[in-house]
C-alpha cells in the first residue's frame, strides 16, 4: 500500500530507483540525511533490474548474473533508512527544488535541499516507414514484458537495429524459449573501422567478454543479416512484412512482430523542465545535461546520475549515483561524509566502468537514414506529423522545434516529444544546414507526466494558500 511522503521536506530527494537512484539513496541515507526515493515502477530496479524483487523468472542464468546483482543493492537501500515510495510519478521539478509527485491518484508537493535525478534512458526513436503500425514495438517494451511477466514472442518475429541491448534482449528471448526468425543488424560497416582505435580499451572492459559470448550464443540460433542499410515495415492496418536492403541484397519477409532498437538516450524531460542546461552530444547524438565532475547541473541543488547524465551503462550509473550522493552529503553534513568511502575510490571505479564506452558509442552510432527520415514517414506519432510536413514548415519560416509547434503541433501531444524530439532536431538541423545545438530542443513543460484535473484540484492546501485567501 502506497502512502504520500511522510514529510513536507527532505535533505535529499532521489528520483528513479534504477542502479543510480538506488546507490544514491543508499549512500545519502547511510550518512543519516533524510532521504526520499521516488520511483514510478511497481518495484525497484529500473529497466536494467526491472522486477528484480518480483520477477517470475527464477532460473538465474536466463536473465544473466548482472541482472541478479541488483538484488543486493535493493537490500542495502531497504535497510538504509531511506523512505522508498514505488508507483510514485514525479510530474514536476523546478529550480526552487519543489517536487510534484503523484502517488495512488493523489498529488503533493515536497521540498528538497538536494535533488538527485536518476531517471535513466529512453530508447532512441527509430522512425522508419511503417514504424507506427500495430505489431511494431521497441525492444525495450518487449524486454519489459519479458522481465515483469515472463512473456516472449511466439509468432514470426524480426529484430532490427543495433547495440548491446539488442543482443541482450535476443539472448534473453531465446533462453526463455521465445521465437526470433531473423535479426537485421543495421550497424554501419564503416563504424567498425572508426571504432578500431577504441578497441583495446573495450577489450579490457567488463562488457567485452560478455558481449562477445552473447552474440555468439544468438548467432548460433538465429540467422543474422549484417550491413542493413534500408528498412521498412508494411501491412494493412497491422504489420505483415518487413523489407530490408543489405549491400545488393533486397528482401521482403513476413513478420507478425518487429522489434526495433538503435540504442538509448538520456531521458531529459524532467531535467529540462526544471531548467537544467543541456548540450548536444555529437558522439552519442543526443542531448546530455551539462554537469560537473559530481554530476551537479546548472540548477543549484540538482544533480543527475545514471544514464540520464549521458549513456554509460549500469555499472557506471551505480557509481555516478554514489558520487552525486556523496557530494550532497559533503554539502549538507560534512561530518557524515567522513563515514563514506572516499570520493577518489568512486572516481577510480567510474573510470573502470566507463572503459570501452567510446568503442560502443562509435561502433553503434546509428546511421543517418535511420535517424533522419524523409517523405511520408511519420515523425510525431501523437499529432501524425510526417518528415515532409516538417520540411514544409521549415520552408515557410519555422526555425526550430518550438516554432514548429505553431505550424504543426508536433511535440505537443501526451508524449511531450519523447518519441519525436531527437528526430525533429536532427531533421531541422539538416534542412537548415545548422548543427543540432543551434537548432535546439522543445521547451519542456510540467507536468512531464499527465495528472488528472481532479487530482490537481484535490491537492492539499498549504498554510500559505489559506493566508493568501484571507489577505484576498
Amino acid at each position, binding site marked *: 500500500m502506497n502512502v504520500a511522503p511522510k514529510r513536507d521536506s527532505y535533505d535529499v530527494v532521489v528520483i528513479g530507483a534504477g542502479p543510480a537512484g538506488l546507490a544514491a539513496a543508499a549512500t545519502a541515507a547511510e550518512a543519516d540525511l533524510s532521504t526520499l526515493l521516488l520511483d514510478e515502477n511497481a518495484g525497484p530496479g529500473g529497466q536494467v533490474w526491472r522486477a528484480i524483487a518480483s520477477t517470475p523468472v527464477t532460473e538465474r542464468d536466463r536473465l544473466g548474473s548482472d541482472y541478479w546483482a541488483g538484488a543486493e543493492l535493493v537490500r542495502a537501500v531497504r535497510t538504509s533508512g531511506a523512505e522508498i515510495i514505488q508507483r510514485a510519478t514525479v510530474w514536476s521539478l523546478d529550480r526552487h527544488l519543489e517536487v*510534484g509527485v503523484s502517488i495512488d491518484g493523489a498529488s503533493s508537493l515536497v521540498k528538497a535541499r538536494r535533488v538527485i535525478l536518476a531517471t535513466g534512458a529512453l530508447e532512441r526513436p527509430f522512425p522508419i516507414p511503417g514504424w507506427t503500425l500495430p505489431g511494431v514495438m521497441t525492444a525495450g517494451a518487449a524486454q519489459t514484458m519479458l522481465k515483469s511477466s515472463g512473456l516472449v514472442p511466439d509468432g514470426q518475429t524480426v529484430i532490427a537495429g543495433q547495440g548491446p541491448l539488442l543482443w541482450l534482449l535476443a539472448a534473453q528471448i531465446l533462453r526463455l524459449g521465445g521465437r526470433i526468425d531473423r535479426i537485421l543488424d543495421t550497424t554501419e560497416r564503416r563504424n567498425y573501422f572508426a571504432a578500431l582505435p577504441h578497441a583495446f580499451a573495450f577489450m579490457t572492459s567488463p562488457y567485452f567478454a560478455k558481449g562477445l559470448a552473447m552474440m555468439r550464443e544468438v548467432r548460433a540460433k538465429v540467422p543474422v543479416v549484417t550491413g542493413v542499410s534500408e528498412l521498412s515495415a508494411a501491412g494493412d492496418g497491422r504489420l505483415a512484412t518487413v523489407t530490408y536492403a543489405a549491400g545488393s541484397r533486397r528482401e521482403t519477409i513476413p513478420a507478425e512482430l518487429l522489434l526495433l532498437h538503435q540504442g538509448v538516450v538520456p531521458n531529459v524531460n524532467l531535467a529540462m523542465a526544471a531548467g537544467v542546461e543541456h548540450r548536444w552530444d555529437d558522439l552519442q547524438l543526443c542531448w546530455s545535461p551539462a554537469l560537473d565532475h559530481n554530476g551537479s547541473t546548472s540548477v543549484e541543488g540538482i544533480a543527475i546520475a545514471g544514464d540520464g547524465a549521458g549513456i554509460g551503462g549500469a555499472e557506471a550509473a551505480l557509481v555516478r549515483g554514489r558520487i552525486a550522493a556523496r557530494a550532497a552529503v559533503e554539502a549538507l553534513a560534512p561530518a557524515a561524509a567522513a563515514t563514506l568511502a572516499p570520493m577518489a575510490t568512486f572516481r577510480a571505479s567510474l573510470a573502470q566502468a566507463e572503459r570501452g564506452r567510446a568503442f560502443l558509442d562509435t561502433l553503434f552510432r546509428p546511421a543517418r537514414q535511420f535517424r533522419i527520415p524523409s517523405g511520408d514517414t511519420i515523425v510525431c506519432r501523437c499529432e501524425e506529423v510526417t518528415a515532409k510536413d516538417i520540411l514544409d514548415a521549415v520552408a515557410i*519560416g519555422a526555425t526550430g522545434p518550438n*516554432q514548429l509547434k505553431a505550424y504543426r503541433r508536433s511535440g505537443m501531444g501526451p508524449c*511531450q516529444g519523447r518519441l519525436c524530439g531527437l528526430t525533429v532536431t536532427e531533421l531541422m538541423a539538416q534542412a537548415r544546414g545548422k548543427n543540432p545545438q543551434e537548432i535546439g530542443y522543445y521547451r519542456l513543460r510540467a507536468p512531464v507526466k*499527465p495528472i488528472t*484535473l*481532479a487530482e490537481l484540484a484535490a491537492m492539499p492546501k498549504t498554510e500559505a494558500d489559506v493566508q493568501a485567501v484571507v489577505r484576498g
Partner: protein
Amino acid sequence: MTKLADAIIVGGGIHGCSTALHMCLAGMKPVLIEKDYAGRHASGVNAGGVRQLARHVAEIPLSIRSMGIWERIEELVDDTCGFESHGQVLVAENDAEFDACRARVAELNALGFTHEELIDGPELRRLVPAVAESCPGGVVSRRDGAADPARTTTAFRRKAAALGATVCEGVAATNIRKEDGLWRVDVGADSYAGPVLVNAAGAWAGGIAAALGEPVPVETVAPMLMITSRVPHFIDPVVILRGRKLSFKQFADGTVLIGGGHLATPDQDRNETVLDWRGLAISARTVFELFPVMRSATIVRAWAGIEARTRDELPVLGPSARHSGLYHQFGFSLHGFQLGPGAGAVMTELIANGGTQTRIGDLSIDRFHRSTP
C-alpha cells in the same frame, strides 16, 4: 555598418509584428528587431482569446477596431491564424454578480457600445450547456472568439517580411539612442538608423522607456495556463467568470485550455518562469466545481509567458511625451493579444498620417506623469 530604415521596431510580439506589417502596407520599410524569435514570449503562449468582452472602457474603441481586422485576418496575413468566432461568455455565479453584469451592460449602452449583451439563465445554458444550474446569467459578446497565438504572431511576421520589412531575430537591440535627428540601434555587429522608433518590447519595454527618460509604473508578470487531454466536445464559446479568476476554452481537437491569471514567478534574464502549482490547483478546483465533465481530464502541460503589466492595467499606446519620433506600444497587462492587429494599424496611422480616428487618448504615456510634480 549602419543601415537606414523608415522605422525601427523593437520587439517581435504580436504588436511589433502587426505594426511592421501595417507599416509595409502604408509603403514604409521598417526593420523589426527581436532578441529571441517572433512570438517567443507572451504573444506566442497566451490563451489566444479574441475578446472585446469585459474590457476597460478606455480600450474598447481599440478593441472594436481590432475586431474588424480579426474578421478578415486571412485576407491580411494569408493564414486563418486558427481564428474561430463562437463568442465569449462571462458567467455570473450568483445574483450579486448578475446585478453587476446588468449595470455594466447598461453603462456600455449609455456610452454607445453594443457588443456586450446581458443574457439570462436559459440563454446562458443554451450557449454553455455544461455550466452549473445555479448560475443566474451573464454577458455575451457574440463576435468574439479565439485564435492560435503562436500561429498568428508568426503569420504577421511572415507577411511583414514578405512585404519588405527586415526582420532580425535572435539578436537584441542595444544602445538605443537618438543622434543627429535619427534613432539608432545596435543589433549585433550592425546598426540601424531611422526617424521613428517603436517600443513594442513587451516585458522588456518598460526598461527601454525608462532608459529614454520616460519611466512607467510597470512590472513583469507571467500568467499561467494549462491544457488538458482531449475530452468530448461540450462547449463552443470561450468562458470567463465574473467573480473568480478563470478563463476556459475548448479547441476543435477536444483539448481544453484553462487560464485566468494566476501568476508564475518570472525570471526575465533567463527567459524562464517557475510555475506556482498552488495557483494552478485553484484554477483546477474552479473548473472541477463548474464543469463536472472535466473531472477525469488530464493536465498535459502548464506554462506561463512573460509580459508587462502597468499599474492601471491599461496599455501604453501612442507617441512619447518626451521625444519626437518615439512611439510606445506596450504594457498590455494580460489582455493585449486581441488588440494586436488594431494597435499595429493605429500605430501606423499615428506615424504615417500624424493621427488616427480610433480613440486612444486615455492610453497615452503622459497619464502617468500628469499628476506627478
